[in-house]
């Protein structure tokens, strides 16, 4: 698909397609042209990095103890997208992960199950089958994850394949090359196209903030993803460092907060990569609580993209229940 696409000429499209991709009022005309979109994105208030870091620094000192810690740990477990994204992934590995997702702590049936299992699209079917009627979602990464360097046709095929295999959540990557080159409308149109290919599957849009680098860019990319119809915005693939840092999460949460205030539509948020400990997870829950409020403290609106985090949450959970630390042999390898 070359340069200008049909989106610049909305009249060329069938009515239902236009309804899908038109941003909500009051932003229904911001993507009408490259220059209008650029003016809108660059007109968003800037982000002062020092100030953002100071804010998360203060929130990082919140002391979450006893009953609130227990609540936070269980809530965090229920928000985990348990992830394996390796070249070496096999059906056996995915089935093992699915079993863990359903019953994270075999010693305690009261332990909540996770929100989703996140795999490459070709293994979505295995995950779907292994998760059965558990209610756990199957998320698949697509669109030439993690680099996103492929033609749009390939990306769309990747999405359709994952959906056909049983994924009900798609984690796409934005075209960072296009973003950094200033072709914001290309980024937008691709998300719109992917959203369309998702059908009823929910779309999480990965910004790969480690490659966008500045918080101003993070804010702009968040708005592109929300305007284009993403259901979630997500920080990172987990393949680039730094991944989900607290200042990045703060800026993305401010974006979903402001977007809902303006349009009435709530967008979810998923930090992914680099969140390994219960402490990190609780810092994120505090950040949500004091930035966007309790409306986002729910697996429908907030997820942790993580693999090793779950075991640390389980160890801390056992510690709270028994009063002593166990050890790595008391949680399962997966």
């Amino acid at each position, binding site marked *: 698909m070359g340069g200008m696409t049909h989106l610049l000429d909305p009249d060329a499209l069938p009515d239902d397609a236009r309804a899908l991709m038109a941003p909500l009022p009051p932003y229904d005309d911001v993507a009408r042209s490259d220059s209008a979109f650029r003016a809108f994105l660059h007109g968003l208030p*800037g982000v002062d990095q*020092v*100030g953002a870091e100071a804010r998360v620094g203060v929130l990082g*000192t*919140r002391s979450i103890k006893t009953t609130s*810690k227990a609540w936070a740990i269980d*809530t965090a477990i229920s928000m985990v997208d348990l992830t394996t994204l390796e070249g070496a992934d096999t059906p056996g590995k995915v089935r093992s992960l699915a079993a863990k997702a359903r019953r994270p702590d075999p010693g305690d049936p009261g332990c909540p199950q996770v929100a989703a299992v996140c795999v490459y699209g070709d293994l979505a079917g295995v995950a779907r089958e292994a998760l059965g009627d558990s209610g756990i979602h199957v998320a698949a990464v697509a669109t030439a994850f993690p680099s996103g360097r492929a033609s749009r046709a390939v990306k769309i095929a990747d999405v359709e394949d994952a959906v056909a295999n049983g994924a009900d959540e798609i984690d796409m990557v934005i075209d960072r090359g296009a973003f950094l080159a200033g072709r914001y409308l290309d980024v937008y149109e691709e998300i719109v196209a992917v959203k369309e290919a998702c059908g009823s599957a929910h779309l999480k849009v990965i910004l790969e903030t480690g490659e966008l680098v500045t918080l101003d860019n993070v804010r702009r990319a968040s708005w592109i993803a929300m305007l284009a119809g993403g259901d979630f915005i997500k920080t990172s693939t987990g393949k680039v460092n730094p991944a989900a840092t607290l200042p990045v999460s703060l800026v993305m949460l*401010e974006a979903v907060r402001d977007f809902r205030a303006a349009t009435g539509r709530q967008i979810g948020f998923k930090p992914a990569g680099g969140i390994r400990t219960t402490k990190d997870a609780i810092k994120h829950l*505090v950040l949500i609580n004091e930035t966007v409020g309790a*409306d986002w403290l729910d697996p429908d609106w907030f997820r942790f993209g993580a693999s090793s985090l779950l075991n640390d949450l389980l160890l801390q959970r056992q510690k709270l229940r028994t009063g002593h630390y166990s050890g790595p042999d008391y949680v399962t390898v997966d």
Partner: protein
Amino acid sequence: MTSSTRAPFEYAPAPESRSIVDIAPSYGLFIDGEFVDGTGDSFKSVNPASEEVLTEISSGSDADVDRAVAAARRAFTRVWGPMRPADRSKYLFRIARLLQERSREFAVLESLDNGKPIRESRDVDVPLAAAHFFYHAGWADKLDHAGLGPGPRPLGVAAQVIPWNFPLLMLAWKVAPALATGNTVVLKPAETTPLTALLFAEVCRQADLPPGVVNIVTGAGDTGRAVVEHDDVDKVAFTGSTEVGKQIARAVAGTRKKLTLELGGKAANIVFDDAPIDQAVEGIVQGIFFNQGHVCCAGSRLLVQESIHDEVIASLQRRIGTLRVGDPLDKNTDIGAINSAEQLARIRELSDYGEAEGATRWQPACDLPDRGFWFPPTVFTGVSPAHRIARDEVFGPVLSVLTFRTPDEAVAKANNTTYGLSAGIWSEKGSRILKIANQLRAGVVWANTFNKFDPTSPFGGYKQSGYGREGGRHGLAAYLKGNDA
């Protein structure tokens, strides 16, 4: 996706333990290296968050002040003045390290006595106090290079009177430069917050500081007057209200005493339409609600460009709604107690004036404890420059919001005050920040931040905010005389 019923994320109480501090039933004065009984009456020090009596404090009489000044004079003449500067430096480094080692103790005691949140005493007051001693310890043997000419000499005995809003930090701002430059001190802490100064006296002993170099005389206004007006004092340094500052200036006029005054403020925090709004809102909150607004450089006048007024106020109110007001010792508390019943009465009086004069008062829903002195975070919109809440220092968690249309109007309104201690500018445009900063008549101008302190940075005021500078190279000058003097 349907949203389930969401339980709010409640933070369980996370109180810092009081057991680390050991408050005696009563305290005397610290004179000539010893704790001695005062000869004046004693008074009670209360915890403003609960009105619980913490201890009894001696009130220094004229005779006590005499003894303290005499001890300071002796120490200056015989020990501290003649001492090798590098040796003075060692004592200051030792004090700085002890402040760090005993930081939890100082933080808990400060929060108990003052009412400020433990997060602030732990993360701001105590580390900054230690930093002031470290910084000045480094200067002690390098004063030849302070730009004051060769071999600058100490003044002698410094009388220092400090306020209740940052008891330990203000002590550090006063004592560290005085000692580093070879002076000895008689310090009078505020009546309502003497406890960390008395713990500091213990640190002086622990550091083997020679007797008489630091003397601490507690008491109220009369004691302060005796310290300031004592004949054998060479230098007076005061931080506090403009009213008392004027009295001191009158008392010192015509004497040989050198004087620095750090007084009130009514700082403008100017938010331009190109500001980073989320961080500006944080800065507004930090500017006025830090330390319950008991900050002389607080950003108590928000000057917001009219075109973004509604957006900023909506964000600000949402943000203020998340502030946690309550037990100062809880690690999650953002706003603690008002320091005294007297101060609370003043805040109430000025706030009532604000309403009576036609401004609109807004306060978030918040449960305040039954006992103790409390005032919720408060925003007044529709404030005109003629209103008292736009002119008088409230010294509490009360923000007055004014608007402007152009940069020139912002500068004119910001400077339209009898004070001139600090100001803030919020803009993403660097050239604008530099231009406006040069036009503001305030001792400290912050850009895209507020209430940031550092020992290397001089602090002080224009107009009725006082004179002289504390901190940095400039602060040393207040305690030294050049060879030409």
